[in-house]
């Protein structure tokens, strides 16, 4: 067991709580920088997706986790960032410039979306963001002179002031943006702005009585979250080098919410855990599709079932693994199971494992479930 003794208020300002965590993060940093030389290009590509999802996860964390405002339309912000990038690139704007511009523009749209949020609560807000996302998707599909409609837009390779970024270069760009976004988010959370978000999340009435301009902070939560998602959108567009409206559907917005639900709503680390999990589902699914029929086949032969039974069960298994809806089936089950059995997300589990190790053998089971509220009604 170790204790951190602080002797000065300024020490609370340090990014890392202890020497051990400095070392741990430094090691992680070295690994991430060395990654292009350590892993195959397929995994590097997956890692880029993890970074992009982690950025979106941070955006979702600030809006939903910190400020408590629900959005199930964040794919729209990703789309706005991505299309801004594609269009800016066509006009020869250099990447660093449009990375910032797309972020700022999406942030502005986020601010505008946040305006109705001032008057809406809970489920009304969720549905309003949903409506916004549908409208954006439709506008992208119909505004053909700018967006080429459903044919989509191609992007050239990312270009930083005349220097073309290769795969590794793009990876470092994503890594850099992720680190910057993370630092910004950490700074927000530990500042008056972050505390205002928290106050709005937990009790809006009390927040107002403490002198917090709830309207201002709600809109800025939307603006900040949208801006970060917009930046992720630029990277996303370059990663795929082709964008079209159906890539920003409701399913994508739900993926984004899943990132923080699975990772854990309250912490930034959760956003990263959630991103890793979400990206890993696809490769895992491929493995399952390949291996599951063989495994069931072997298992059934092993317990000595008759050939016709095996054949019919095997047909059923094949039907399930080859069904187009398999991914959403698994996603659906994951969401439900996580919410029921791991409501604090992967980060909550991580914290408990860490606490358990630290306090071993004195650790005891603590309640990890969120407080249930039957009396405090959200209904208005």
């Amino acid at each position: 067991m170790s204790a951190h003794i602080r002797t000065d208020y300024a020490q609370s300002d340090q990014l890392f709580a202890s020497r051990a965590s400095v070392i741990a993060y430094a090691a992680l940093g070295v690994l991430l920088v060395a990654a292009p030389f350590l892993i195959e290009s397929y995994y590097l590509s997956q890692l880029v997706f993890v970074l992009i999802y982690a950025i979106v996860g941070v955006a979702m964390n600030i809006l939903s986790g910190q400020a408590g405002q629900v959005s199930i339309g964040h794919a729209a912000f990703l789309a706005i960032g991505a299309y801004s990038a594609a269009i800016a690139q066509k006009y020869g704007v250099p990447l660093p410039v449009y990375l910032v511009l797309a972020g700022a523009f999406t942030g502005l749209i986020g601010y505008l979306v946040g305006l109705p949020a001032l008057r809406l609560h809970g489920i009304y807000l969720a549905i309003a963001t949903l409506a916004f996302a549908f409208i954006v998707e439709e506008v992208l599909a119909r505004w053909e002179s700018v967006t080429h409609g459903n044919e989509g837009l191609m992007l050239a390779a990312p270009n930083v002031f005349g220097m073309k970024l290769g795969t590794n270069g793009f990876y470092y760009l994503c890594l850099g943006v992720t680190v910057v976004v993370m630092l910004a988010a950490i700074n927000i959370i530990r500042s008056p702005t972050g505390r205002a978000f928290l106050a709005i999340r937990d009790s809006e009435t009390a927040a107002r009585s403490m002198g917090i301009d709830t309207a201002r902070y709600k809109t800025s939560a939307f603006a900040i979250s949208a801006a970060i998602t917009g930046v992720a959108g630029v990277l996303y567009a370059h990663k795929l080098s082709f964008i079209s409206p159906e890539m920003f559907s409701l399913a994508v917005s739900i993926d984004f919410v899943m990132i923080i639900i699975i990772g854990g709503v309250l912490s930034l680390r959760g956003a990263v855990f959630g991103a890793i999990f979400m990206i890993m589902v696809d490769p895992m699914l491929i493995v399952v599709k390949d291996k599951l029929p063989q495994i069931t086949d072997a298992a059934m032969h092993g317990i000595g079932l008759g050939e016709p039974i095996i054949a019919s069960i095997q047909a059923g298994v094949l039907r399930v693994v080859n069904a187009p809806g398999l991914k959403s089936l698994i996603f659906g089950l994951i969401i439900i199971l996580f919410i029921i059995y791991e409501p604090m997300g992967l980060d909550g589990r991580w914290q408990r494992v860490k606490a358990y190790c630290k306090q071993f053998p004195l650790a005891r089971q603590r309640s990890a479930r969120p407080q249930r509220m039957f009396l405090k009604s959200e209904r208005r």
Partner: protein
Amino acid sequence: MTYFDVKDLTIKFGGLTAVDNVSFDINEGEVFTIIGPNGAGKTTLFNLISRLYTPNAGHIVFRDEDVTQLSAQQIAGRGIARTFQNIELFESASTLQNLLVGRHRHSTTKTWQDILRVRKVRDEEIAHRRAAEEVMDVLRLQRYRDTPIGSLPYGVRKVIEVARALCVGPSLLLLDEPSSGLNVEETDAMAEWILEINRRLKVTVLMVEHDMSLVSRVSDRVLALNYGRKMALGTSEEVQSHPDVVAAYLGA
């Protein structure tokens, strides 16, 4: 100078007049208590003063300024802080964070400065921390500094709410039933703290309270309400012996 003056305040909910033409004034530095049976309109009056409700008629004047049309967050900015009858703390945050939220009106940094965490933000953070620690010293809350509110007992939460309101740096502190839900010892401690806040920190206190022993111990003046109307105003003894008040409480 008028310190705090409520004039002809009225609010109606549908057909019910919850606060009916109530007028009173508070002198700087006193402890002023509002009593009354359940449903007398005490909390409604509080919500009117902290501008969570908008009155149908009447005025609230604080330090010669008409604050009737200000928003709730502006009221806090003028130096009026409050607690809530049923505790409205930020439950997922720690005690320290709750207190720091109370310091919000003393922050002058813009959001972009927060994001970049410029020198000014860091300096202000330290100042906020120091102020919060001072309040924790007064109310002996140090041991709960990093504990999430959700895992603290009710009595402690009640004190933390007072601490958070003190962090606002109020000139006028509104306490909505500070002793409700507290046991005898806790009520006793609460009375001491109210006096300490009033005498040592020079904060004017306006409170709603049911516990008459607490009321007579700390109050300079008492206002009794019933059915939203003023029944009696005076010292604790005067009000308690007022025939209307006796009748209202004994249900004559």
